[in-house]
């Protein structure tokens, strides 16, 4: 789910920032400068205690509101905190899962996925209450009532194995993206190939965006048996390279000692062929 206004500020059309200036701006009275600074600090991963504390405070911001009642600054602060790998943000992000703004809940779930903190599991599970039957679209909005994709992926990334039975039914959800998120989580939680194969099947989907997404899921979970199907998928090479990189890096359990074997060499030969 892409929030329509998420990219309205880009590096090209905004004033250049320094970390010092961004920290100042995050606390200034101009709401648009605060919004941009929160995005910028995440984008450039400015990871200082001061930044993390200021962003945690911004998760409770009441000043920056949209006409529909959204909280733009909270969204950006939640997104940035996922990128800063500081688990002090976890309690604040968990609280954001109850926010009235869908996009704040989505950003928080995505960041909790990155932080992989088991404390978030109960609050994430709460968003799946009612199961697939309750997972319907909000009338007039471009999204479901909860950020199911992000929630399912977060539970998978956290490794919450006891949530399998709650996640499994989402494999049959009517939205392919939700099915993929469920398959991705189930594969992470069980390592059973049937879930990896579900993602492989999406590589045949007629929608290029879904094929790209399936590549990114396969790369993220490192489903090694997909290597050849990834290399021959009808998607731009850049996406295939990223997916194969995910497979390759998943093969190295010790990130410092690189031991090559037939599997990793084969992956690199596939990558070479896509250059």
């Amino acid at each position, binding site marked *: 789910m892409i929030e329509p206004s998420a990219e309205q500020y880009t590096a090209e059309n905004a004033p250049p920032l320094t970390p010092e200036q961004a920290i100042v701006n995050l606390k200034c009275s101009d709401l648009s400068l605060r919004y941009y600074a929160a995005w910028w600090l995440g984008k450039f991963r400015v990871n200082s205690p001061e930044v993390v504390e200021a962003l945690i405070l911004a998760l409770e911001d009441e000043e920056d509101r949209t006409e529909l009642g959204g909280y733009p600054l909270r969204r950006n602060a939640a997104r940035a905190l996922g990128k800063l790998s500081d688990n002090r943000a976890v309690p604040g992000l968990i609280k954001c899962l109850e926010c009235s703004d869908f996009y704040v809940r989505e950003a928080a779930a995505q960041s909790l996925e990155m932080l992989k903190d088991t404390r978030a599991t109960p609050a994430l599970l709460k968003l799946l209450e009612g199961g697939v039957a309750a997972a319907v679209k909000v009338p007039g909005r471009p999204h479901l009532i909860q950020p199911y994709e992000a929630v399912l992926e977060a539970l998978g990334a956290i490794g919450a194995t006891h949530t399998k039975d709650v996640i499994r039914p989402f494999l049959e959800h009517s939205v392919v993206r939700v099915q993929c998120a469920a398959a991705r989580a189930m594969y992470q939680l069980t390592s059973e190939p049937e879930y990896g194969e579900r993602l492989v099947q999406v590589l045949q989907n007629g929608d290029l965006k879904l094929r790209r997404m399936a590549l990114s899921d396969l790369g993220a979970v490192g489903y090694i048996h997909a290597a050849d199907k990834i290399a021959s998928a009808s998607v731009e*090479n850049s996406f295939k*390279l990223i997916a194969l990189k995910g497979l*390759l890096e998943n093969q190295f359990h010790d990130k410092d000692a690189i031991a090559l074997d037939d599997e*990793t060499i084969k992956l690199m030969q596939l990558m*070479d062929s896509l*250059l």
Partner: protein
Amino acid sequence: MNTDTQKLIRAVTEADTSARMVSAVENLVAVKDTAAIPTLIAVFGYNNPAAAVIAVKGLIELGDAAVPQLLEQIDDYNYGARAYSIRTLAAIGNPQALELLLEAAATDFAPSVRRAAAKGLGCLRWQKLEDSERIEAQKKALATLFSITQDADWAIRYAAVVGLEELAKIPDLQQDIEAKFSQMRIEDAAIAVRARVALAQQVAS
């Protein structure tokens, strides 16, 4: 021009569906006629990846004969088409492509073009050059590949390693490349790039 080839070329220009385009290009490639070269290069710009891949294969089979037109017809406005041209030139390996590959690897805005050029810089057929030219040309290729091992994009660095692995077969360059690999093996931020360096080192030893 052989009338058969003319007919086959017309079939490519008149193909009105993606599937007809693919089979028309297949048929044209099958006759292995140098008269087909401009048409095959034009296919790169049709936004039909399946047809483009077949055209790449056909042009590679035609080899050196296709090089002058590949160089002249390079599409400055369509990076998709440009990437196919660079891939084809890289696979043919004619050193006439050197200047184009150097420029593409270092300065193209499209990562797909830069990756293809970086790989290609490693596998030119240097023996086609005079001794004096050859040493200069190899030095330029080495310098460009070294410079892009610092790129912010991991896939560009990965492609540079693939190019350097091939260049390392040249005795005069070997030592510098080994030193660069040792450094990247420790310093590169991406595990995938470090792994590719490890493979290149294994191949070299």
